[in-house]
């Protein structure tokens, strides 16, 4: 998957360079496009959506309205999106992990499937880290587990999506320590709880980076397959001997059944906006990473690949 991503990323850059002037040649939206956001206002997904919409408007002259539809880690937004008309006027931005998780854990309650959407592209993959306060008596997983065993007290862990909780539970179980999972609504709230000393560990999906740079927190592990650009010395969970990872992608989809020319026009517009100078600069400044548009076909593959990853994770926490 890593190789695939890299190839896709370089292809994306090339395609963006070539495709930018030829935008939307055959298709024009018949009205304003609504870009629904799977999370509330102010978070990273929301910010990405607003940047994307702004850039797409500039590139294409289309009118794009950003709308927040938070709830269920994106289930609420995608439920609405799956029922919208496939006229190219309704697209949505969500994160693969929580969606696929819900689809696997309670399929009967979810009114859509992966196949109910046309995939347009991705914006970036999120760097997810397990973080602790700087003065915590541990700085990696080994130290953390040793500390937990010695103190005998359960670790309190803030999280804001189900896969985060599962990874921590899997680690706790295999290491023979106890962990209490404390649900939160956003990365910013997790940081609030961590900095206030209300929890021992938190998951950072970007909100933690300014605190890391300010020297207030330490990164215990990268939860991705790769290390993070802002903290290249911090090893991944896999490198620390725990074979768990997630690769959360911010992806754009539309209800299934787009006309081919609409799909092409939209995915080209997404691609150009994702690789724009503004987005690149923003991602470099905030998430310390580069834009990654997989393109329509590989985004769909990525969704099915995520299903596989999560099934493995579920098996190991059973």
């Amino acid at each position, binding site marked *: 998957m890593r190789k695939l991503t890299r190839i896709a990323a370089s292809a994306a850059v090339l395609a963006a360079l070539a495709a930018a002037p030829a935008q939307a040649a055959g298709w024009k939206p018949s009205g304003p496009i609504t870009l629904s956001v799977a999370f509330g206002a102010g978070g990273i997904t929301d910010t990405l959506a607003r940047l994307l919409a702004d850039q797409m408007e500039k590139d294409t002259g289309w009118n794009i309205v950003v709308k927040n539809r938070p709830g269920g880690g994106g289930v609420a937004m995608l439920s609405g999106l799956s029922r919208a008309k496939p006229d190219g006027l309704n697209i949505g931005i969500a994160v693969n992990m929580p969606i696929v998780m819900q689809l696997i854990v309670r399929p009967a309650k979810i009114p859509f499937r992966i196949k109910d959407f046309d995939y347009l592209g991705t914006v970036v993959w999120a760097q997810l880290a397990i973080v602790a306060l700087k003065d915590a008596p541990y700085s990696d997983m080994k130290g953390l587990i040793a500390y937990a065993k010695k103190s005998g007290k359960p670790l309190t862990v803030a999280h804001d999506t189900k896969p985060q909780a599962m990874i921590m539970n899997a680690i706790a179980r295999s290491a023979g320590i106890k962990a209490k999972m404390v*649900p*939160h609504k956003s990365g910013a709230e997790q940081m609030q709880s961590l900095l206030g000393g209300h929890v021992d560990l938190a998951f950072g999906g970007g909100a933690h980076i*300014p605190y890391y740079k300010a020297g207030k927190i330490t990164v215990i592990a990268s939860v991705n397959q790769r290390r993070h650009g802002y903290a290249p010395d911090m090893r991944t969970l896999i490198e620390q001997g725990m074979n768990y990872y997630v690769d959360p992608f911010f992806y754009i989809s539309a209800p299934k059944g787009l006309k081919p020319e609409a799909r092409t026009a939209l995915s080209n517009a997404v691609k150009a906006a994702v690789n724009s100078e503004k987005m690149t600069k923003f991602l470099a400044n905030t998430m310390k990473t580069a834009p990654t548009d997989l393109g329509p076909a590989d985004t769909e593959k990525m969704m099915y690949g995520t299903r596989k990853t999560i099934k493995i994770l579920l098996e190991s926490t059973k």
Partner: protein
Amino acid sequence: MFDIATILAGLGDAITPVNILFVVLGVAVGQFVGAVPGIGPVITIALAIPFTFALSPLSGIAFLVGINKGGLVGGAIPAILINTPGTPDAAATALDGHPLARKGKPLKAAKMALYSSVTGDTFSDIVLITVSPPLAVIALMMGPIEIVCLLIFAFAVIAGLIGKSLAKGIVAAALGLLCAAIGLDPEHSSPRFIFGVPDLFDGLPIASVAIGMLAAAEIFRRLAARRKKITAAIVFDPNQPREDRRVSWPEYWGCRFTIARGAVIGTLLGAAPGIGSTAASFMSYASAKQTSREPETFGKGNIHGIAATESANSAVMGANMIPMLTLGIPGSVSAALIIGALIIHGIQPGPLLFEQQARLIYGLFGAMIMANFCNFWIGLIGLRLWAFVIRAPESAIFSSAIALCIVGVYLSTGTLFGVAVMLVFAAIGYAMTSLGYSVVIFIIAFFLGNRFELSLNQSLTLIDGDFSVMLDHPVAIALLVLAVLTAWWLTRKRKPAHDAPDRAPDRPSD
């Protein structure tokens, strides 16, 4: 901490013709949308963010902050004039504002609201500018356990508003919490009470419930109570003596403690994110009523009631910026939107903000103070316009207001489903008011319900059956003790006031 040159340069940046223009524009737009039932500053900020991309960061953010501040002042105007709060924050302002307006003194009521709002806002801005970093500690201190206890304390204080019947108050609160439980649960994201309607995954849209119960229900009630003769919404003599049209200095000065208390309550609740300005204004109102020498005049047009609510809800705004700028934690939806705008403009809120962008932040502070002045002057000018509008026949005012409610709810929820929910809750609100159940209690319970559930859930996980954990949380214990004391004190005080005609806050006012 910083050299004075940076601060002065920042403040100097704020005072450019372009920035002044955008602050004035923002405040004017904010006051207008705040005053029009149903639209409100939140949706306006969301719509305005893309327009700020073309501006410099400072002008853009100043514009958004102007809308936010203007909206808080504007929301009080319909609350006072026609008893339909333009924003939920202003719901408490209607309690005394509207009775005073019905006594033929709408301008006095609106001016008192304006003055206390600007005072409260300025107070919390000064707190923000001077002691922001130390106050950021409040947000960090407030962990899940503390938040639960703070909410319990807030509920106890607001219980002072319950009115005559304790049972009916509890029923209203329980209904509010029940409605807040609709949607996905915070821990496992399993759907509750959605009856197969996917639109309810997100829970009931807040704008629909608030506008339906507070504004639309009141409009229906007024239309239903209308006799054949069409009158103006508010009858007042345009040539009334000057003292009925203005707030004199002694009157304002007489409210100084009420305003100061409101400003402090608003600032503290604003610095601890998640409680919000609606609860702050009701807490301030309840404490003003409890400490007043003549509590029986509250609800009948006491200017202290207006001063208490408006100073508190406006003070929340400035203080909200403390956790927002220093920690990147939004205290309200509009703060969350402004964070998004800051990030888009390349400004990352958080611990490094004051070091990296000090000049810009002081520019923003300058713009905030400017916005307060604009609020004052534009408010005074705007009042003339609203006082003119309000003399139109009721039939014209209420029919346009209901149209605006529908448009506003459609704008903010984006679906006709939102409008349907608004109409359902207008009916529920009408029924509750007619039967003497407090709509206000319902709304507060509904607003705080989700936060309460999440924090309770987190706290129970942390405590895990071992209540000795509580000993590590002295703030939480102090808040619980305060809550118990308040509840005890309020029930004791209730008795002597019993024979006085205790008007439920949202009972028909005529």
